[in-house]
């Protein structure tokens, strides 16, 4: 009883001292709660469907950020991982009769393999060359998909996959919990030593190599990790839509991921996730004017970029929080002095 009380008091203290002092952390907490408790308020199947797809794409956008935002290896062919994940899961499910909990992780392994295959030639390229070369890979795979319709289903794709689970509600909980878990893992990765090396590779690769770190290995690791998470989201997409088609490999798919990530703010993980949760339901909302839907999407992205080229969420965060000039700890913008070192904030 005493031990329980101790932990409860500790939890309360952390909540009060670390979470409630910063608006961004409060918002993240509220986001977790809202997403998890939403079915208690409404179980509208259409709303749940949108949120399931949003969660799947949130994993995808965050995985792009892990590779391209943190390591600076701009990947314009992220649809490759998504498509490989989706197709591998679909083939395993249809031919080997694996249930979703087996085919999705194996599909992700397929995407890791794809990450290795494209990572090795891409290690010698940098910057714009890399971006434009990676764009080529999903298109090459799409050509192969179309050329062998007997295996891949060609233009129609592979359909008739087994469902994620029995009901829409359990589908929702599976995807949302997986999304929250994976995003937290990605955020932890970027916060670890490996993540710091990823940061350093983006800032100055030569200096990292001079410090005795094998950058090649870390860049390959970034490709594989990103491929793994993107592959999982591809597998979930295939099993939720119950079809794996060539649309998962399209150029538009790759570009959409990049738009989400940059719109939300790269090198943050929370930015791309937030961007998907803003833009994807917004796009669904615009379905009342189907012919203006993509136009509005494009215009919103253009306008946001003009005023906040670093992305929406870092911009918002800078509005509500300031960084202490002395100890670099973040404070709520209303404070006059830093909450840790009491240096004046201005």
């Amino acid at each position: 009883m005493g031990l329980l009380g101790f932990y409860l008091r500790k939890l309360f203290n952390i909540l009060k001292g670390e979470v409630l002092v910063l608006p961004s952390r409060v918002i993240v907490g509220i986001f977790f709660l809202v997403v998890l408790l939403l079915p208690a308020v409404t179980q509208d199947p259409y709303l749940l469907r949108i949120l399931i797809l949003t969660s799947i794409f949130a994993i995808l956008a965050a995985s792009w950020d892990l590779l391209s935002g943190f390591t600076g290896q701009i990947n314009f062919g992220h649809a490759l991982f998504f498509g490989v994940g989706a197709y591998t899961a679909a083939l395993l499910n249809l031919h080997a009769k694996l249930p979703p909990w087996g085919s999705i992780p194996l599909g992700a392994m397929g995407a890791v393999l794809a990450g290795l295959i494209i990572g090795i030639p891409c290690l010698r390229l940098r910057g714009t060359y890399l971006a434009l070369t990676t764009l080529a890979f999903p298109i090459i795979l799409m050509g192969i998909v179309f050329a062998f319709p007997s295996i891949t289903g060609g233009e129609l794709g592979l359909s008739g996959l087994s469902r994620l689970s029995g009901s829409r509600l359990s589908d929702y909980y599976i995807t949302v919990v997986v999304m929250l878990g994976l995003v937290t893992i990605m955020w932890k990765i970027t916060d670890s030593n490996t993540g710091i090396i990823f940061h350093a590779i983006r800032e100055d690769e030569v200096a990292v190599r001079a410090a005795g770190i094998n950058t090649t290995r870390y860049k390959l690791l970034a490709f594989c990790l990103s491929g793994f998470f993107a592959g999982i989201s591809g597998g979930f997409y295939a099993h939720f839509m119950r079809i794996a088609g060539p649309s998962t490999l399209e150029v538009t798919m790759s570009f959409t991921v990049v738009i989400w990530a940059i719109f939300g703010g790269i090198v943050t993980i929370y930015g791309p996730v937030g961007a998907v949760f803003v833009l994807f339901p917004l796009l669904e909302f615009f379905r009342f004017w189907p012919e203006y839907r993509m136009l509005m999407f494009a215009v919103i992205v253009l306008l946001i970029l003009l005023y906040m080229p670093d992305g929406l969420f870092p911009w918002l965060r800078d509005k509500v929080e300031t960084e202490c000039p002395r100890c670099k700890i973040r404070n709520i913008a209303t404070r006059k002095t830093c909450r840790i070192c009491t240096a004046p904030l201005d």
Partner: protein
Amino acid sequence: MRRGTMLLDILISGLISGSIYALLAISFSLIYGIARIVNLAHTAFYMVASYCIYLGIYKLHMHPVWGMLLSVIIVTLFGLISYKLFMDPIREHEAAVLIGTIALAMAMQEIMLLIFTGDYLSVPALIDGYFKIFSVKVFYQQLLTFVVALSILAALWVLLIKTRLGLAIRSTAEDREVANLMGMDESRVTMITMGISVALAALTGAVIAPLTTLSPFMWTHPLIMVLAVVVLGGMGSIKGSFVGAYILGFAEAIVVFVAPMGAYLKGSVALSIMILVLLIRPEGLFGVVFEEER
């Protein structure tokens, strides 16, 4: 004789798509070289130009030549305005430029979709008729497209090498700051280059319009090929873009005519060639390796 006609078919189709890719890739390289802007909306301007010609011929009942001129002027103005509004303010943020231009291209695609719907449209040829070599039909329009593309390329070469403006463009591409110190107005040179670049894209749209069907999605395939050409030849290298364009143009043509399921695989094969070349020469065929900026 089948093999002979196939060779000729490959030659004609390779030369035409090669010239088109060369025009697009060189104009794309120009603006990249000067302003470091990766303009992914480049081929969208080409799509808009083709639609302007359609509009000029069928709605305003103009002669096709006047229609082409009008479309080039309109698209150039439109390109300059969109540069001023959407690209110039975010030029320093490389990632923002990438998605800004994609969003711009998507906006243009959607606007065209609203005005003209998604139906396939076609534009009449300037000169009808064809002649035969070894029982292969060569349309006069194909010949005209090829000749016009080559003469535009020649004119561009003269502009870049022989004129003072060309000198300013080349020196700005080499070193922006020093060019500025030598008294060249860097932002004006960039504006002019953007104008030239968009005008070239529009001209390409004008010469290719009679040979293809118009659709709002006609910009994606050329965009991918242009990116492949530019990477293959070396970013910012005009000679590289020229050579790369013909390599990929012919590769596409050979795959389409020789391989079964060729129409599906043409993009894949061309892009695989690009990746193979990059494995051997990461800076492209004619690219220069710069000492890494730190």
